[in-house]
């Protein structure tokens, strides 16, 4: 990444799109405090990031559940780490397991669940401690299309009205437009911000049918032009190098 300037307003759902390897995931880790920039600053809520960012949640593309803990113990873990114990912790964990639709699976282990179910446990694990910022790194790209649509709808349902800020990385432009208030297009690496688009589609969004809205197609065409150039540029560089 180089020369990325990005201001994100609170309580907005922002999608980051761009060709593979352009640094979208790196942006997320910088915000989370998992990585530090070699030059420049990252600030959250007016303060520079130093160590793990407070009140941030991260949903990974790969499976990040601890395989040796049950569903319940996985969801309890962030509460444990933050000093929440006993009946309060159990109650909050139970509530969230229910909200993601997995009541009855508390004692199961990750290997006994399907990919979609595991993603839902991860959602519960991330949301149970009520982080103000949600960072999502292509969280649904490993799922099949039907499950992905279901998860997108669930995510919106859980986010709507919560006041949380979401930064959602994806290479799927359709997904970005369907979910977000704003789409940021990044260039091929070293990355810069190429363009930012407001998505004015009405909320609450109907994931299944939003793609049929004519304004959806309009937005898509505009953004796709920008994105396609970057994707082609990225391929060209890869072919030259390889």
């Amino acid at each position, binding site marked *: 990444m180089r020369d990325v300037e990005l201001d994100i307003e609170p309580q907005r759902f922002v999608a980051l799109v761009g060709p593979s390897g352009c640094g979208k995931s790196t942006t997320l880790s910088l915000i989370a*405090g*998992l990585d530090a920039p070699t030059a420049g600053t990252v600030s959250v809520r007016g303060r520079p990031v130093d160590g*793990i960012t407070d009140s941030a949640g*991260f949903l990974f593309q790969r499976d*990040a559940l*601890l395989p*040796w803990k049950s569903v319940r113990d996985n969801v309890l*873990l962030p509460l444990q*780490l933050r000093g929440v114990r006993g009946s309060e912790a159990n109650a909050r964990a139970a509530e969230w397991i229910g909200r993601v639709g997995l009541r009855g699976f508390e004692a199961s282990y990750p290997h006994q669940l399907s990919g979609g179910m595991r993603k839902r446990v991860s959602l519960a694990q991330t949301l149970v401690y009520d982080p103000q910022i949600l960072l999502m790194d292509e969280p649904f790209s490993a799922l099949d299309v039907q499950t992905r649509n279901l998860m997108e709808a669930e995510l919106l349902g859980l986010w709507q009205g919560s006041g949380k800020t979401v930064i959602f990385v994806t290479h799927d432009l359709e997904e970005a437009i369907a979910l977000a208030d704003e789409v940021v297009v990044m260039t091929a690496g070293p990355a810069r911000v190429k363009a930012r688009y407001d998505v004015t589609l009405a909320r609450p969004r109907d994931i299944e049918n939003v793609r049929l809205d004519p304004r959806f197609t309009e937005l898509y065409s505009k953004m796709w032009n920008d994105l396609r150039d970057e994707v082609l540029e990225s391929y060209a560089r890869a072919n030259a190098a390889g």
Partner: protein
Amino acid sequence: MRERTRPVNRWLVTATQVALAVAFLAGWELGVRAGKIDSFFFSSPSQIGATIGNWWHQGYIVKDVLITMWETVLGLIIGGIVGIVLGIVLASNRFLGAVFEPLLVLLNSIPRVTLVPLFILWFGFSLLSKVVSAVVLVLFVVFFATYAGIKDVDPTLVANVRVMGAKRMDVVRHVLVPSALTWIFASLRSAVGFALIGAVVAEYFGASAGVGYRIQYSEAQLNTSGVFGGLAILMVLVTFVDTFIRWVQRRVLVWKPVEL
């Protein structure tokens, strides 16, 4: 038409194993009785059985087995703990790991069985030299497994718990150690054999009781039956301890998908 892969029939497997064992023992016994196999060199199943029976009556078996088992178990526990702790420390602290891991690789290349007479010299003929010999063999196996198990941990899991608020010790406790446990258990099962080797070899070089002692005593008396008898007892011991470890493993690693 696709062929279904049928799972292996458990009963058939066990039955075949039993049949092979019986055939082997029968062939051996008959070979000796027919004069084709010299029992001075190879003994025979009946003679070995008689020897073990004789030892049982004289009370040797309980005494020797308990002593060797005690040495083995102590060596396994101490060597295991030291190996695990060392593995955790050197795998999670990059500086210490870079400094000391190559040293352990170097030490590992010394055939430690040749050090046993030295241990007898330093620690005498009592329990200590046997336990040290066992520890030295166990330690390296468990260390390298723990080290690799922790290095092998999925970085996504570590990142996830860190964002959730985990500090250093939390990461070790909730992610690194459980992740390494699969490797650790696998290494413990082979470490049992090593612990037993350490104990028995040390007994061989200087002891007044134990299964290794009993084997050496038999050798000195040109008693091949005794040597094989001792070996048979050792095999039973190893099987026993191994079964126990697998039992523990099944309970601790309950989250693992079952392999067919």
